[in-house]
């Protein structure tokens, strides 16, 4: 939404539509797991899938747009939450981490030219791990120490593993169904 020189109508459309895609994943309500107040959500595969299908640049842009609109007060997070408070809450780090998630997953997909299932799995795992890199330390600010935040975050791992595996299978199928989609998107 800022630089007119780099934003073609096609890029604008992809960014907007995939921000909307992440929002639609929020229709599945979050599950309150553990007690840290950070829900288990489906939405965090959104940035990873977007990056696997669009590449790092457009995937990250879509995620950034989604987060910006959420912060502005639209109820786009799972369970119809929104506004700036979720970014101040214990899950705020994970939310910001979605940006890194998309960036990392997109870069992996771009570096390893083939869009096979193992590559997409690797991209997904790297993307999800990148989210923890931001989310866990931030949660640590709330729990007071990194260790307990890390232990606390283990509840998300099984769910995220399933989600990443699902995302990789789906992305591989979509790439097979629409070959050469990513050709124009080097990064």
């Amino acid at each position: 939404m800022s630089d007119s020189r780099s934003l073609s109508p096609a890029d604008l459309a992809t960014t907007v539509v995939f921000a909307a895609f992440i929002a639609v994943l929020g229709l599945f309500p979050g599950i309150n797991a553990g007690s840290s107040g950070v829900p288990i959500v489906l939405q965090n595969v959104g940035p990873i899938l977007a990056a696997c299908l669009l590449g790092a640049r457009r995937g990250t842009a879509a995620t950034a747009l989604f987060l910006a609109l959420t912060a502005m007060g639209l109820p786009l997070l799972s369970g119809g939450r929104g506004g700036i408070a979720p970014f101040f809450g214990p899950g705020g780090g994970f939310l910001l981490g979605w940006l890194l998630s998309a960036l990392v997953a997109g870069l992996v997909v771009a570096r390893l030219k083939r869009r096979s299932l193992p590559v997409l799995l690797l991209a997904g795992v790297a993307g999800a791990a990148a989210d923890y890199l931001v989310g866990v330390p931030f949660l640590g600010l709330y729990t007071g120490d990194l260790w307990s935040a890390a232990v606390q975050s283990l509840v998300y791992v099984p769910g995220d593993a399933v989600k990443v595996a699902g995302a990789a299978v789906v992305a591989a199928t979509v790439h097979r169904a629409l070959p050469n989609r990513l050709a124009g998107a080097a990064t």
Partner: protein
Amino acid sequence: MTGGWYEPGTSPLHRAPAGAKLLALLALAATVLTLHSPLLLGGVCAVIALGYASARVTPRRCLRLAVTLTLLVAFVFTIQGLLLGPAAALTICLRLVAAFSAAELFTVTTRVDAVVSAVENAMRPLRRFGVRPDRVGLTVGLTLQAIAALSSIAAEVRQAAIARNAGFSVKALVVPFLIRTLRHSDELGQALTVRGVDDRP
């Protein structure tokens, strides 16, 4: 623009400019981090509570916030209490309550439109670097419409999956949905081109 967490009202907080409120919120969050005295922090929380009262936030809304905060505080207090002792735990919990409820108060009393305008205004000085503040509002509108379009695509795809007795197959739901999403974005890109989105003024 409709929807959102905004609750209509006429209180001074509702009428205050969005930009100023946002700055105040950020200042409050920063201050709260530097405060250690539970007494002072308690005072801040009390002031925020007064803010909720003056904005006449509905009891339902307050209850929902209270539930969220109670769960959160119970968790944080237990862990911090064990690790650092009850005094430190209390400080941390009060900070959390202050920052979170102030942020929520901002959202409840500020129209999305107003936030959009505030962001546009804040970006105005960046114009000379090629930033186009008017795109903020347009992008919000574009995304809202895209959400509506994708929601109806999702509904169609779900019905097609059920019709094939594949209502629980993730693949049967997500693959066609993504393919139609990609196609929608192609078509939207063409529609935007036709409407002159890449034209310079």
